[in-house]
């Protein structure tokens, strides 16, 4: 891994399993990644690829049972946060790590005013008085671009539109100046013109506040526009990791390559036919003993069926979990 700005979050060999009536589901398998100060890390994958479960595991948001974090370490602020008590986790989530979810309507409480929901973390975690909290809440709404911020504190969530609610969620997540903001598909439920507004807002506050952001999405277009570095997930594993420019210019994993080719373009020549990836994403009922992409991969060979490829470094900022890359003389990643 590269030096440069300090690493503020490090995830090692994270493994999360769900216990279901039909047996175990191996949702996250040996996931490693790190996050540097001020960086925006994009996490791309389809539904069921394990991207949300990975992030929920980090900060203890998965109900257990059915979830079980079987292995791994998550180093934040010099300690492993996987073993923390629920109380310590609450403080961590309130103050150090902010969260924005996909659907703002279900993550805001409909019976409390927006002002109350914004002030709650401020009073609980920052020890502000009611008056101080109200002032900061108004500043926060102003920061995320809600007009008449002071008046709107006494409004309820249903009085805001979808885009405005997502701005409120971002304001709550930013309330206590977190070091990390985790955004799970924050713009997926929004229209494109509203999504453009939110992306613009994120670009602005990122520069202003300098926090690190993990941005989970299935939309490669969104990633191209805001991320510094990207990890691609498939079947509960990270299959490729690179800087955003590298990933789009020289994708090396067959899944990343295929994914980039399936998206029709908004300009330039039109393909007569879309390139599609045959088959279905895997059902993760077994601990992986093969490459999860093998059944759909056009380059698959014998070894892919018998062994799950580890991530190989192609250079200091690009690694890929594919035997094709390891054959070309790359060195082992972990």
């Amino acid at each position, binding site marked *: 891994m590269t030096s440069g700005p300090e690493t503020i979050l490090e995830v090692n060999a994270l493994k999360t399993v769900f216990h279901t009536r039909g047996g175990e589901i191996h949702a996250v398998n040996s996931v490693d990644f790190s996050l540097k100060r001020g960086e925006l890390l994009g996490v791309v994958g*389809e*539904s069921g690829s394990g991207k949300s479960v990975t992030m929920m595991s980090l900060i203890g948001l998965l109900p257990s049972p059915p979830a079980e974090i079987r292995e791994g370490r998550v180093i934040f602020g010099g300690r492993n946060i996987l073993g923390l008590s629920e109380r310590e986790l609450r403080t961590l989530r309130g103050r150090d790590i902010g969260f924005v979810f996909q659907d703002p309507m279900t993550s805001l409480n409909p019976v409390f005013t927006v002002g109350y929901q914004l002030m709650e973390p401020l009073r609980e975690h920052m020890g502000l008085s009611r008056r101080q909290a109200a002032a900061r809440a108004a500043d926060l709404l102003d920061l995320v671009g809600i007009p008449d911020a002071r008046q709107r504190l006494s409004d309820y969530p249903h009085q805001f*539109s979808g*885009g*405005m609610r997502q701005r409120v969620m971002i304001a709550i997540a930013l309330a206590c100046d977190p070091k990390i903001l985790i955004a799970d598909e924050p713009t997926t439920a929004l*229209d*494109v*013109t*509203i*999504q*453009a*507004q939110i*992306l*613009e807002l994120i670009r602005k506050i990122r520069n202003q506040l300098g926090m690190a952001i993990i941005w989970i999405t*299935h*939309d*490669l*277009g*969104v*990633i*191209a*526009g805001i991320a510094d570095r990207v990890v691609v997930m498939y079947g509960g594993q990270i299959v490729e990791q690179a800087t*955003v*420019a590298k990933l*789009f210019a020289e994708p090396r994993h067959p899944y990343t390559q*295929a*994914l*980039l080719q*399936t*998206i*029709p*373009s*908004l*300009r330039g020549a*039109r*393909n007569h*036919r*879309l*390139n*599609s*990836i*045959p088959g*279905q*994403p895997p059902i993760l009922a077994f601990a992986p003993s093969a490459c999860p992409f093998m059944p759909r991969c056009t380059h698959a060979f014998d070894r892919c069926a018998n062994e799950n490829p580890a991530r190989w470094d192609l250079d200091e900022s690009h690694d890929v979990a594919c035997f094709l890359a390891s054959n070309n003389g790359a060195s082992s990643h972990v």
Partner: protein
Amino acid sequence: MYFPIVAGVFRRKVGEVKAVDDVSFDIFEGETLGLVGESGCGKSTVGRSILRLYDITAGEISIDGAAIGQISGSTLRRMRPAMQMVFQDPQASLNPRMTVASIISEPLEEHTSLSPEDKLDRVGSLMDSVGLNRDFMNRYPHEFSGGQRQRIGIARALALNPRFIVCDEPIAALDVSIQAQVINLLEDLQAELGLTYLFISHDLSMVRHLASRVAVMYLGKIVELAPRDTLYESPRHPYTQALLSAVPEPDPEREAHRERIILKGDVPSPANPPKGCTFCTRCPKVMDVCRTVPPAPSLLGDGHEVACHLYPSGSGLGNETGTNTEA
């Protein structure tokens, strides 16, 4: 298409939502017309009104020269086989307690007098043509993945050999890698069976791939309608321009240097639309006239219509009322 707004214990009508207001367009045989717009703009209502799933408030719809806007009952029922629909959410549009065979053969039960063996035959060949294994005929929808369920929905729509299909966001609920499979299937079927599609979507790059002409809707009106390449290369309406510039592209280089038109605010409520042009509250190029006079569509040549005061109507394309569709 106006929906009443009712209130109070007696459900008195207190107003109306002009979900689709004064929309006119043609669809030509064998083509795909893309209909794009944001949520709440009325694009699904247009699709459903054309198929007469709603009773329209005013206007006329004709399919193959036959006016269907005001007909009802058995006359309408006889027209149904020619026009079908594929819905957005395959989970919600398939009855979980029916087997795939009974779902696909239901239109056959209703509209044909095939013998049971012929029906099963037909179901099997429909499943083949949408790429489903006919051995799974007796399974239930929950046993299939999202993409496969959408194939079941497509097979059902094809059962009566329709000529015209409204595809209402057929890929919006699917993963990226599955979307391409379904789109390729729709294209293959169109080539094979000579189908005409109205493809409703908010995904502008997918519409560019599939449609031959594209209509853009905003708050119940069509603001621009043009052949595909014209629309994507030289959009004229400020809304179309903003919409296209808001679509994130999978190209970091371009994204870094791109000029975006960021629209201010939200879409106004269709129950209380702005006077004049409905886009006047968010338009970056708004003029005084826009706030009072609704713009009439003007023809810029080569089938490119735009409803905006920036392009004064020279030819005066007229201001027909209602939906006029030919498939």
